[in-house]
């Protein structure tokens, strides 16, 4: 047991919050993947039609860096060539990986403020682990201050996602932050942390709030459902967020019934649930960090999954069980 423990400690790192504190600037990046249908990627850059007026535009690595330099974000992201992981075109995925490496060089060369802004590379290579390894080797050699694992969360199977994260983290240097892009479901974050990732970002907690979904340790619930109209408990019992905390403790004491009353009807409903959901994730990450420091992250994971699936181990997702087995955490053991 002791040997296993020390082994785990080497791998499970101290994760950063999925959302940087408000005082720091958010990483900036340009998401070209959603415009893919109309964009055309050439060695020069990405050509696309402006979503505003349809006029043709060109985004080059140099231009992307210059924009981020003027924005002044603490973390800036390279321009990369992203292909949906589900794409069947292997040759194109390979080309995109190599192009991302070449673009990284152009980004580094164009970066004017390396002393005050941290440029992160983005590992590409689809679901092909060999391509991912090659990309890791190439990019780590460029010695950027931090490393992102990109191109995931595009609808690939969860086990494939875990394999890519696990493969990359094994090849990445210990003392640089590892940022898995676009990951937001609590389970995905916690498993990725076990696989050695540090940072995450996702629109999911706030977007799902706009649809009336509240995130709790027991799962995510749509409060627009009629079942909640007469439910006078807070969104999550015991939650210390401004929305859930009772009025006697300085909170708002908002009930599920009230969220049901305003969700998808008033913008304030989205705001209230966003407050709760973001608080829930920040609190989850705080507890994950605490567990890592106290050397009980595996127990933390077991407790988390136990609560999420009400102790029914048959319901545990296979991908999570398998991925965690790979880092010697047995979710199914007692």
């Amino acid at each position, binding site marked *: 047991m002791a040997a296993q423990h020390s082994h785990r400690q080497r791998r499970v790192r101290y994760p950063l919050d999925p959302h940087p504190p408000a005082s720091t600037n958010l990483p900036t990046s340009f998401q070209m993947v959603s*415009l893919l*249908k*109309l964009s055309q990627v050439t060695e020069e850059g990405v050509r696309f*039609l402006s*979503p505003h*007026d*349809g*006029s043709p535009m060109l985004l080059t690595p140099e231009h992307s860096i210059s924009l981020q330099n003027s924005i002044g974000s603490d973390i800036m992201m390279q321009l990369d060539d992203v292909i949906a992981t589900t794409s069947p075109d292997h040759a194109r995925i390979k080309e995109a990986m190599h192009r991302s490496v070449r673009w990284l060089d152009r980004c580094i060369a164009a970066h004017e403020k390396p002393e005050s802004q941290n440029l992160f590379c983005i590992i590409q290579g689809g679901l092909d682990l060999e391509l991912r390894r090659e990309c890791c080797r190439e990019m780590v050699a460029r010695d950027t201050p931090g490393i992102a694992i990109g191109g995931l969360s595009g609808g690939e199977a969860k086990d494939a996602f875990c394999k890519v994260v696990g493969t990359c983290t094994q090849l990445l240097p210990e003392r640089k932050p590892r940022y898995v892009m676009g990951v937001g479901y609590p389970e995905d974050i916690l498993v990725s942390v076990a696989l050695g990732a540090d940072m995450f970002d996702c629109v999911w907690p706030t977007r799902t709030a706009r649809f009336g979904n509240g995130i709790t340790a027991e799962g995510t619930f749509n409060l627009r459902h009629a079942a909640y*109209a*007469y439910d*006078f408990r807070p969104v999550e019992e015991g939650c210390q967020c*401004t*929305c859930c905390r*009772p*009025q*006697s403790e*300085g909170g*708002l*004491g*908002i*009930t599920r*019934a*009230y969220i*049901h*009353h*305003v969700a998808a*009807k*008033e*913008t*304030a409903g*989205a*705001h*209230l649930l966003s*407050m709760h959901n973001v608080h829930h994730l920040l609190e989850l990450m705080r507890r994950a960090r605490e567990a890592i420091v106290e050397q009980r992250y595996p127990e933390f994971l077991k407790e988390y999954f136990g609560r999420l699936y009400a102790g029914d181990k048959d319901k545990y997702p296979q991908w999570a069980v398998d991925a965690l087995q790979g880092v010697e955490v047995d979710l199914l053991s007692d």
Partner: protein
Amino acid sequence: MTVQPLDAVHRDKIAQLPEEMFTIIKSVGRATEPRLGRLHILGRDTLETPHYVATTSRGVVPHITQDLFARATGINGVYVPLEDFIEKAPDKIPPLYQFKSPDGSSPLRRFIALRERALLVLGARRTPPIIAPAANPNTNTSVSISTSVGFRPLTAEDYAEAAEKLQPDIVVGLGDIPYGRALGSKRIEKATDRNIEWLQAHVDVRNDWYEDTTGPSTELFAPLLPVSCANQHYYIESLLQDRSKDVDGLAFYNLAALEDLPDGLSHLPRLALTEPTTPHEVLQHVSLGLDVLTVPFITAATDAGIALSFAFPATAAPKAEAPPVSLGIDMWTTDHATSLAPLVEGCECYACTNHHRAYLQHLLSAKEMLAWVLLQIHNHHTLDLFFAGIRKSLEDGSFQQNVEGFAKVYESRLPEKTGQGPRIRGYQFKSEGPGEPKKNPAPFQMLDDRSEKLAESTPPAADADAAELEEQGFAEKQS
């Protein structure tokens, strides 16, 4: 927000307060003249009048979450319509009626998480309400209300029961108010009878409800019909005589009843559930002696992306040759795209002290909800100052002169709406019939809509002009 035991200082303060809920501080004596007053309800912030209460939708000032309401606005009173909460009543008991306040205080206040010291006014209908179709008229026992599941009748009895159970600070009695329709003399007679009867019934409910206690904890405001007092004189008579001990204030739905309001009712606070569309109309309302107003154009301006920018008294001196100053700034226009100035120079609201025009313009064009949050904070702050200016002018006797100056300096209307507001919901407008255009234009279109159009169109004729080319999917003409 717990109810603290009163310490000695507080007790002394309460002892010093006037017994009356409403005190007129300054008035010229006639009924229809502007007046300075103070509306005081134990446990709430004192409302110096003339003032406004913010209008709410489904229990919230639109775009302002309850924590922001307490932290970033100076709003000290809200108007809440019951129709926002009673979707399927009476077939199904609404959640609000089953909700039990954790500390025995007003269930409505706790349900909507309203700040403890903010004044809570409850009425039956939104202001402005959505006018019920002719097929859903008010009856002898009910009014037609609009809920998110359609128009439904609300009986006077149910309303009175609910209002007393929910314990707002002020409850506006149910009136047979014919929104949007002129009244014939027969109809006025009927409405007068209904108002007398409904008010009587409401008072009976209160007497039953508070039999064992010291008296009602809510203040009952009697609704006046939107006609002159002479036209509803039986109702006015009943207010002056039978009901004189039961009624704590009056609610107005237009200015007609103010014209010949008898002196016997002038000591009562006057709540206006009217729809002033400009600050000029607000000034007119105040001039006629209204004390507490609802100002729906604040939220309307916010939704339109307009930052209100007027001040009372007008800061610029009226000049004969100068063009009138705009009442608001349309934040959608790209003129603001690079402006780091606050929305209004010198404004001390949260939005103006923390953000600039360029950010707001960006938020609007990106359709980020934060744009409306910031505008709503700013626009309410503008009205806070506007009413403070009114009270100060009344105090020092410069009100009439300042009203004239205001009319000379400012434009007569708010700027036209150019941008798109937040999504409009079913309970916010009434369908006018078939063939109506979409209220919420699709946020996204196919990006290559243009090229498809181009491919489908026949080649343009040699003498086609720019407009025709544009129609066929060519780039827009740059002016």
